[in-house]
């Protein structure tokens, strides 16, 4: 609490991002974990909760007559603009938030205070929910070609690699250790994915320390061993995911890439994915475009183009496709690396896995995949997501790009994924929220040292418990689209702007009726109908056979009109600003939102319940309802309500 200089400010205005004239007045509270804005309007209890760990940047603008403005950008792309009456108060809030949003020590992270009063024993099932070894077993490993190596126990060979690694059967510890000495950060070639069907494998590593001419016999033997582990193939691909120029530049620093002359039977290939700095700037530029106030179509399209974001997404997907095709269609193993092998390599390997293996397109499968290729292989979440006060140059939306690639694939293959976009967006939020321990730290060694399994909760089991929210109604395991390799089109027009993520909090921009939610509701109803059908059949049989036995039964009246379900129809009633400020008064009148909302009350109350049960925590009041734990569309306190009532 020592960082909170001012716990409460009255008469704060929260400006509507799109039309600032529509603002809400309320009280701003700072707690240890959240900033909370409570609207003062009579009758509505409208709250906006923002986790401190989600705050990305704070901007205090010059004071005006109406007060001082504080602009808060969040890592989940929420933007809040508060106007605080007194400069002094604004200053205090600003300083407090600056400190609160940038913890200096890991133990200040939200996950350590989130539902803390549960002992490690109780937490264990949460963390045991996903088992990486089970995934390798699913791939058919270990087998006669690949073995589990103990060489990296206690992280002795590579401190950023996991302890358990699969290597070719013929790779001896001296070869592995020798190879690791010839690779950046000791990240020697190791298995990421193995195809049971044709023995082709995806392996990953960091760049070789080849400089202009250096060689390493063990490293060459290591690649030879990988090649031999695929008995049907007489060559393998080595894919360097960097632009060629970047790789060449690395040679001057004693690093570089494999020389085809030194390694037997490799085909070397560059795939130009840009580095973390380019990606960071690109996303920043795109977000500037997303945040423009009433942009023209040209502003938006030009901005989107010049940000280069979709170009980068396409590059990552293209690389994934190259690898997936090599494995599935050619039966050739691939070694993938970039510089350190934890950013681009991770993206590309995991995208290839999604394309290759239907399992990774299920709820559980995607979680395992992130656990395997991202978490266990040492994607530096703490640095890339800026969990702790650190070097801003280390920050980069590498995982965002992976999630977006999956989303782009879902758009092309609507029946192929068990999960929906809400699942991806929820994962995205929690990668940054620090509410769960999964994405804390930069590698397995750090996570073990932090005791995350003992002291924090796991996102995966939370998502699994709430999986009903994340199911794609169009998915069927036996659908033809679900099977085998996905062959997406990579024509530029197949890539779309992901509005649901980047403009997530601009409610007015999204479709007002969700086909997916409609279908889910129908499916739920279908399930109930099945049960009724069975029970009716049973009753009829009973009545027909043993009439004297039967008991009067009241037929349960079934609400026929689909589903007791509505869209956000109140939203349908809210005109936007089409006038460019033509009408001076507030353009929307309150119109019967009450009757409409009662129809929705079922769903709403349900979501409040599920919300609360998730959040039973020791922290009173503060944790009782976090906006993060529910998706925005279900959030009962959404500003939707305020929108139509304002």
């Amino acid at each position: 609490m020592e960082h909170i200089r001012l716990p409460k400010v009255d008469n704060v205005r929260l400006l509507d991002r799109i039309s600032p004239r529509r603002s809400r007045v309320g009280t701003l509270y700072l707690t240890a974990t959240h900033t909370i804005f409570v609207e003062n309007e009579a009758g509505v209890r409208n709250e906006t909760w923002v986790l401190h760990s989600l705050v990305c940047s704070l901007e205090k603008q010059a004071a005006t007559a109406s007060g001082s403005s504080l602009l808060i950008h969040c890592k989940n792309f929420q933007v809040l603009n508060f106007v605080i009456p007194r400069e002094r108060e604004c200053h205090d809030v600003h300083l407090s938030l600056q400190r609160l949003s940038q913890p200096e020590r890991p133990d200040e992270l939200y996950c350590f205070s989130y539902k803390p009063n549960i002992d490690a024993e109780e937490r264990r099932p949460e963390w045991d929910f996903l088992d990486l070894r089970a995934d390798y077993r699913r791939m058919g490993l270990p087998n006669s070609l690949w073995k589990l190596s103990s060489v990296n126990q206690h992280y002795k060979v590579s401190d950023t690699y996991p302890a358990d690694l699969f290597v070719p059967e013929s790779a001896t510890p001296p070869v592995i250790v020798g190879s690791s000495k010839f690779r950046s950060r000791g990240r020697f070639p190791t298995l990421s994915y193995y195809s049971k069907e044709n023995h082709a494998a995806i392996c990953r590593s960091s760049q070789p320390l080849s400089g202009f001419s250096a060689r390493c016999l063990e490293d060459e033997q290591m690649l030879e061993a990988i090649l031999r582990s695929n008995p049907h193939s007489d060559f393998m691909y080595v894919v360097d995911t960097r632009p060629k120029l970047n790789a060449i530049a690395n040679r001057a620093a004693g690093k570089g890439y494999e020389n085809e002359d030194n390694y037997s039977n490799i085909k070397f290939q560059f795939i130009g994915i840009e580095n973390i700095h380019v990606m960071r700037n690109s996303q920043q530029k795109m977000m500037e475009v997303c945040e423009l106030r009433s942009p023209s179509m040209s502003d938006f399209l030009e901005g989107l183009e010049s940000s280069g974001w979709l170009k980068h997404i396409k590059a990552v997907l293209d690389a994934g496709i190259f690898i997936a095709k090599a494995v599935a269609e050619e039966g050739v193993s691939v070694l993938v690396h970039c510089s350190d092998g934890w950013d681009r390599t991770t993206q590309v390997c995991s995208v290839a896995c999604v394309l290759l293996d239907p399992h990774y397109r299920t709820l559980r499968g995607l979680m395992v995949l992130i656990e395997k290729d991202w978490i266990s292989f040492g994607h530096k979440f703490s640095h890339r997501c800026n969990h702790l006060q650190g070097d801003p140059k280390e920050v980069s939306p590498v995982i965002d790009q992976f999630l977006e690639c999956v989303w782009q694939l879902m758009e092309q293959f609507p029946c192929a994924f068990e999960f929906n976009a809400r699942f991806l967006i929820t994962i995205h939020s929690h990668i940054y929220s620090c509410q769960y321990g999964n994405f804390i730290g930069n590698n397995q060694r750090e996570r073990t040292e932090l005791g995350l399994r003992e002291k924090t909760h796991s996102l995966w089991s939370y998502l699994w418990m709430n999986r009903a929210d994340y199911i794609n109604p169009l998915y069927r395991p036996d659908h033809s689209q679900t099977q085998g390799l996905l062959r997406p089109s990579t024509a530029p027009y197949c890539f779309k702007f992901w509005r649901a993520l980047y403009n997530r909090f601009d409610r007015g921009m999204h479709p007002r009726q969700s086909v997916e939610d409609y279908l889910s509701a129908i499916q739920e109803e279908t399930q109930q109908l099945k049960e009724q059908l069975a029970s009716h059949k049973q009753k009829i049989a009973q009545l027909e056979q043993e009439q004297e036995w039967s008991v009067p039964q009241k037929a349960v009246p079934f609400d026929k009109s689909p589903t007791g379900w509505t869209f956000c129809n109140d939203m349908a009633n809210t005109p936007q600003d089409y006038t460019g400020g033509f009408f001076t008064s507030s353009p929307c009148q309150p119109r019967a939102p009450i009757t409409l909302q009662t129809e929705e009350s079922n769903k709403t109350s349900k979501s409040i319940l599920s919300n609360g049960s998730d959040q039973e925590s020791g922290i009173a009041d503060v944790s009782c309802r976090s906006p993060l734990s529910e998706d925005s569309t279900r959030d009962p306190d959404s500003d939707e309500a305020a929108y139509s009532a304002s």
Partner: protein
Amino acid sequence: MEFAELIKTPRVDGVVLHRPFMPTVEGTLCLTGHHLILSSRQDNTEELWLLHSNIDCIEKRFVGSLGTIIVKCKDLRVIQLDIPGMEECLNIANSIEALSTLDILSLMYPFFYRPMFEVIEDGWKSFLPLDAFKDLETMTDEWRLSEVNKDFIVCPSYPPLVAVPKDIDDDTLRKVASFRHGGRFPVLSYYHKKNGMVMMRSGQPLTGTNGRRCKEDEKLINATLRPGKRGYIIDTRTINVAQQAKARGGGIESEANYPQWRRIHKAVERSNVLQESLIKLVEACNDQSHSMDRWLSKLEASNWQTHVKEILTTACLAAQCIDRGASVLVHGTEGADSTLQVTSLAQIILDPACRTIRGFQSLVEREWLQAGHPFQQRCAQSAYSNSKPRQEAPVFLLFLDCVWQILRQFPCSFEFSESFLVLVFEHSYASQFGTFLGNSTAERAKLSLPEKTVSLWSWVNRPQELERLTNPLYEANSLVIWPSVAPQSLLLWEGVFLRWNRSSKCLDEAYEEMVHIIEYNKELQNKVNSLRRQLAQLETEDPLLQTP
């Protein structure tokens, strides 16, 4: 003239047809007066039946003695025919060119087409102005149906019957007509039942440079205002364009002469700009390059999405004025293009009836066909035409695109699915039906289209077609639906512009899956209901159950 004169080679064997995302077919190519037909003469193989009027342009290429004709269609499809023999190929190409550019209306296919289906309801009679007026009369008695234009003399592009304020007599209307572009005096476009506000449309006032004024015009439009209320005139031109129109005899309603009206200028592009935009957009979509930058910059440069945004925004503004309790007059220059985009879209937003299949047909009839949108001129050529555009413009296609945008944002509020919009688009450019022939009711009457051709609606309004075009998600939504016009919310209409450039297999499967989920639910509901009835019957039959 005989078609045979134009067909130099009616038949060629060994022609290979290439279509996007379909296997190539080898077969016999036949040319008839109205169709290009390719048949492999095998059972179960899909044949090509292409209307000549659907062909926008052709290109020919020769490699040795093998000729290739690239056929570019108005529905944006591109197909390729490999024809052995240079002479045959040249003959075919010349014939196609001649047949596809015939502009004698009475030789068009609709005059030769005989329906192979039973006409349940004659679409020509489904949406007569008289019937529409009867509906209006149930809501208000402030309007009357005028026959002032019964000979198409007062306004050649208007239908014989139009709804006008009750207190305005036909003489006044004649005077007003002489003050409005094309004789298009203000007529009722839409009556908003909820609050009695109206939307009217007209041509621009002919004020000219010296500010000519017409008391009757002022009287007419003021007659639509409630006492003490102001109305809005939405001019679909920018203020500059509107001012410049004065030099050519046009103009704007000055505030001095129309004190009860507030004028709003919105920039909706004129037709020649739209045509150029369509050509650029389709060119971008067909670009084979894999560069993202190139695609996005071409998409942006086409300005198509900008037009969509402008039109939708203007329609939303008009709808908002009405919803907030003010009457509206919409016009641009002629009042037959951008004006109709705005008035028809505003109705989609405001009036749930327009979101049904039948209501949408009625809207197209009232606000486009009877309102005198010159379909014949606008849809003569589409995006591939090399010839210099004259009157061509995708005004109607843009309207359909805007409807699709709203449909995307309110996927459960429309009775029809996207395929209905695509169908209407196709038929507006080339069709066996007579609906979109001609530029006005007068022209259609002169050609006796209702007697000599079949209406598109006769075909659509049959159970099997309706079922195909119905949106399985539809649940009547009686509310006004306000779409988002943010650039992030407006998408490229893939169903039209990328239709032939990417495989739709996966999306079609998803649609089928969706239909399946809903059908299965209905099936179960029926079963449960019938069992419930059976159960109830058993229970009443069972004497033991009668006693508690």
